[in-house]
């Protein structure tokens, strides 16, 4: 079985990370389709959130400021460990 950890880096197909940059009022902003806030998922118990309804986000994406310099990650997503 091939192990991706051993795959040559040259074989990697880089994912396009072209941001959806839009000039808004002279400032550069990134339009991000923000996920629904957890508060809007109909959660009515502080114990365990119910399975959210996966509906499209309504309304216009809210522009947010894009850090000009690469920010340090505050967390890392990975398979559970």
């Amino acid at each position, binding site marked *: *079985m*091939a192990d*991706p*950890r*051993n*795959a*040559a*880096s040259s*074989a*990697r*197909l*880089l*994912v*396009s*990370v*072209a*941001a*959806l*940059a839009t000039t808004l009022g002279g400032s550069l902003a*990134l*339009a*991000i*389709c*923000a*996920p*629904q*806030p*957890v*508060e809007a*998922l109909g*959660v009515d*118990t*502080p*114990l*365990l*959130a*119910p*399975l*959210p309804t*996966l*509906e*499209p*986000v309504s309304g216009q994406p*809210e522009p*947010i400021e*894009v*850090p*000009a*310099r*690469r*920010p340090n*990650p*505050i*967390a*890392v*997503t*990975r*398979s*559970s*460990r």
Partner: protein
Amino acid sequence: MLSVEFKTMGCQARAFLDATGARAQAALAELPAWFAVRAGILSRFDPDSALSKLNACGMADSVDDVLWEAIDVALRAAASTNGLVTPTILPALEAAGYDRSFDALDRDQAASLPPERAVPSWQAVEREEATRSVRLPPGLKLDLGGTAKGSCADAAVLHLAPFGPALVDLGGDIALSRSSRGPWPIAVEDTRAAQGVLELVLLCEGGIATSGRDFRRWRRSGRDQHHVIDPATGAPSRTDVWTATVIAPSALAAEIASKRLLLEGRSQGLAWIEGKPELAALVVTEAGIVLGSSRFRQFAWKEVA
């Protein structure tokens, strides 16, 4: 920024709270105990947990809120994925060799593997709301691990919400709420290289989770095993997806979608993601190829020229 780090539910947890003051500090300090209560109820490794007692007896009455809700979440996940992400895989997972906590697991087991067969349907789990009763048919046991982690991460963010924006990272399943400081920068780990980062994403709220067969691996009867069971075969998944990361409206939704993507494979899984406007995904295939869904680029940080 306040933070706390602890171990719970078999993984490393961290939480950040963008707040100041004694009440916020106290709320964050309560989090390890808050999780410990849930871990104590939902653990499949602790024979005294409510889940283990249910699995051992096949029945329970007057089930407490935490277990009842966790079973409900897991069964709703199964229903929403046509049984693909189901809690009924536990006997198959144990037969594959994952029958104790991963830290205590023999990573090279000589025992034989059982013949492949489909796991029991999630619909075989009987529940009675009025008496909070659960009945499991013979041979059916529940593993609530993945969905419990995702929903607990979401619930922990809600728990902290009165004090400020929060991020809760439960071993890689991450829930977060909106911060006035801007989006939370989160790295997607690249397991093909030591300490590698595949992408850096900026998230305002919701959740992100990764499912993969890069970790929690062992060998049994000379064959590689991992913890993501395909319910159709009762054996570890053998699709072309090595890891799948999903951005979603909640950590729970991200956890379910990432596992679904892993189980369906890149073609079918990414096609499903494309049809869900609220989801974005990044996949590493078994061959080491990295693929992103069309909406993933909206979240990826890029240096401005």
